[in-house]
Structures are given as structure tokens and as C-alpha cells.
């Protein structure tokens, strides 16, 4: 049975990882020990057999196949992601019933016009102010800030509004992979009240003290509400990360009071 230290030196010698001193020590030992010599020779031959075994060729179609797949997959998706409007996913379930949808839309439009109290929200954008007002029954919102970020296959927009002792945050967009958007806030400045998913059915929301984590995927829309009882100077730290890469990071801050 060979000494583990000799086995280590034999292996390291194969990897060219021995120091000069270790190589010399191993050489001396091999000269005197037949068993170690056989082991070293066998081990080297086994490794050479493995190293020199015929290797397969990728083949002529290898590269072409991958490139064709990438071109097919990437190009249309990127195009769709840019073209897709925020509201289109709302209508996706109705795609097969276009006729019915059209009629309903027409009737609704007529009603809206007749009542003169409605404004059409077209699918080219999301009126966060209006939606926040609809959700809370209070249209008195003042836009504070907004930001948007994009990457291949990802497009997101964040809007921040202030109501009476309330901060409303809208996040919408589309992504072909998970984007984690974290909102950090100071619990002594404001309190998280509610989150409403307006569209999309993938991803989720994690609520931890001082932090809301939105896991977004596909087409998505979220509306969040924070209460700020004394209308203090609110600030919000926003960070969007996908697959380890930071897409957006910013600390939003505004003057207090209203």
C-alpha cells in the first residue's frame, strides 16, 4: 500500500503542479520503490489513454443549427417585447373572441361617451394616476417621478404619485425572463398598505419590513400603495435586477408636505 503523500506527489507530477523540491523527492522515492514506479507508470498511461481518446467532431451543421435557433428565437421576441403595449395582455385571453370583444368594446365606448364622465384609456399607455384614483376612489394624485429601463427582452416603467397622505407606485412592462424589482422604503416615513396586480399572472410579491420585492415575468402590471400619515418627505430606493445583472437602480426623494 503506497503512502498517501507519494500518491499525491505522483498525481501532482502528472498535473505539473509539483514544486522542484517535490519533484526531486518523488524522483528519489520512485528510484527506490518498484510498487510506486508501477503505480506512477500505470496512472500516467491511464490518464494518457483518457486524454488521447478520439474526440468527436461537432459536425458541419453544428454552428448553423445553433445560429438558426438563436435568430429564430431572439429576433421576434425582442421585437414583440418592444411592440407589446402594457394593456395588450389584458386582452390576450379574449383573442379568440375578437368579434365579441369588439362589440363589447364598442358598447362600452358608447356608454363612456354618453356618460361624459369617462376617458378612454388606450392601449398605448397606462394612466397610473387614473388607475390609482379608480382603485382608491380618489383622483387627487400628483405625479412625483417616473423612470423606465430596458434591456434585450425587458421593458419596464415605474411611476410614482402622491395623493393625500398616500404614495402610489405603478410598475408595468414586459420581460422574457424574471426581473426582480425591489422597493426599499423607510418604515418610519411611510407604511406599506396594499399591492394590486393589474395584469399578468406570473411572478409574485414578497413583503418584508421596509422592503417590497416584486418578481416580474411576462407582461405585468402592479400598483402599490403606501400611506404616509403626515405627508413627510418620502423616499424610495428602487433596484431592478435580472439574472444577476442590475438593470436599474435609483433613490427617489421628494420634498415633504403637500
Amino acid at each position: 500500500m503506497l503512502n498517501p503523500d507519494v500518491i499525491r506527489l505522483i498525481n501532482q507530477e502528472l498535473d505539473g503542479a509539483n514544486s522542484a523540491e517535490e519533484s526531486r523527492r518523488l524522483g528519489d522515492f520512485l528510484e527506490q520503490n518498484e510498487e510506486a514506479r508501477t503505480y506512477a507508470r500505470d496512472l500516467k498511461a491511464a490518464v494518457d489513454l483518457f486524454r488521447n481518446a478520439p474526440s468527436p467532431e461537432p459536425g458541419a451543421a453544428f454552428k448553423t443549427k445553433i445560429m438558426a435557433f438563436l435568430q429564430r428565437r431572439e429576433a421576434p421576441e425582442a421585437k414583440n417585447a418592444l411592440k407589446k403595449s402594457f394593456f395588450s395582455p389584458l386582452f390576450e385571453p379574449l383573442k379568440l373572441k375578437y368579434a365579441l370583444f369588439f362589440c363589447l368594446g364598442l358598447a362600452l365606448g358608447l356608454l363612456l361617451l354618453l356618460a361624459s364622465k369617462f376617458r378612454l384609456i388606450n392601449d398605448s399607455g397606462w394612466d397610473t394616476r387614473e388607475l390609482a384614483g379608480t382603485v382608491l376612489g380618489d383622483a387627487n394624485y400628483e405625479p412625483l417621478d417616473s423612470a423606465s429601463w430596458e434591456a434585450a427582452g425587458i421593458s419596464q416603467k415605474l411611476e410614482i404619485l402622491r395623493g393625500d397622505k398616500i404614495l402610489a407606485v405603478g410598475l408595468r412592462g414586459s420581460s422574457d425572463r424574471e426581473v426582480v424589482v425591489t422597493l426599499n422604503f423607510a418604515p418610519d416615513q411611510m407604511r406599506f398598505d396594499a399591492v394590486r396586480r393589474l395584469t399578468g399572472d406570473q411572478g409574485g410579491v414578497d413583503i418584508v419590513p421596509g422592503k417590497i420585492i416584486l418578481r416580474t415575468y411576462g407582461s405585468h402590471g402592479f400598483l402599490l400603495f403606501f400611506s404616509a400619515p403626515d405627508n413627510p418627505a418620502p423616499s424610495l430606493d428602487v433596484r431592478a435586477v435580472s439574472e444577476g445583472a442590475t438593470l436599474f437602480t435609483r433613490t427617489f426623494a421628494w420634498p415633504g408636505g403637500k
Partner: protein
Amino acid sequence: MYEEQDLEAVRECLEGDVDAFETLIVRYQKQVMNLAYRIVRNVEDARDVSQAVFVKAFGRLSSYEPRFKFFSWLYRIAVNESLNFVEKRNRKPGAESVPAGTAEDPEDLFEISERQGLLDRALHKLHPRQRALLALSVEGLSYKEIGDMLGLPEKKVKSRLFEARHKMREILVQDGWTSHA
């Protein structure tokens, strides 16, 4: 050697030039395929795994950190993909999966195929992770580089690699292989 060119190609891909990825495929297809084959031990499976490696790498380019060598990053994906594949595979690869050796003399060819048969049987008796260690070591990577790829400390890499070699030699000898044949 290719580090700068690799980075340039990655940059172009991230700027939307999908064709720039072709350079990286051409540069590394052989190595990736060889690495995958040494782990999965089936030519067709290795080809499928290698293609999946490049597709996956492309999809994850935005997470590639330029401080690492591109090929190390690609190798890591290849090792993981190959190991995942082997774990999922519930069939044993057949003898026809071994690539043919090249020799003009029929006797040489016979000897090569005999030796390959022995090696193949020995490798099938090793754990896929042991095959991965052997494969990475013959690529000339340092213990540290192997450790980074497999998420192992250098010391563990050494002990597991030496154990894998010991086992491979033992199986070969038991099957009648002689190093001076």
C-alpha cells in the same frame, strides 16, 4: 489568447448583433463538445448537450462577468449542462456512441478500439462528477480553476481528482489493461 476577441464578441452580442456569437461558437465548439463527450460518453448526446450549452450561454450573456475568462464561464455551463443531462438520462449509452479512432493499419485500429472499449467501460463505472474532474484536468486547467467551475475548494478538487484517477486505473487493470501494452 482570445480573451480580448471574446470580450469584443460578447459586447457585440449584447448590443444586438446575434451574428457575433458565431465567432464564439466556431472558437469553442470543439472544446465544448469534447468536454461534454468526456462526461456524457455518447457522441449524439454530447452534440445535443453542446448545442444547448451555446444556446444557454447566449441567453445568459448579460450575466457574464468580463473579469472571468469567457471560456472558463462557458466550460462551467458545459460541465453543469453535461452533469444535469447525465443525471436525467435513464439509459446507458451504447458502444456505437464511441467515436472511431483513426489508424490506417487494421491491426492498429483493432488495438485502438480494444483500448477504447476498456476505457469506455472503466469510465462508465465512474461517477459523472469524477468524469468531469478527469475531463477538466486533461484540459490543463489548474486545481483552482477546476474548483471555481465546480464550486469546490482546491483541496477537495485534488483529493477527488486523485481518487477518480486511482479508480479509473484500478478498473482498467482489473479488466486486463496493462500500461505497457
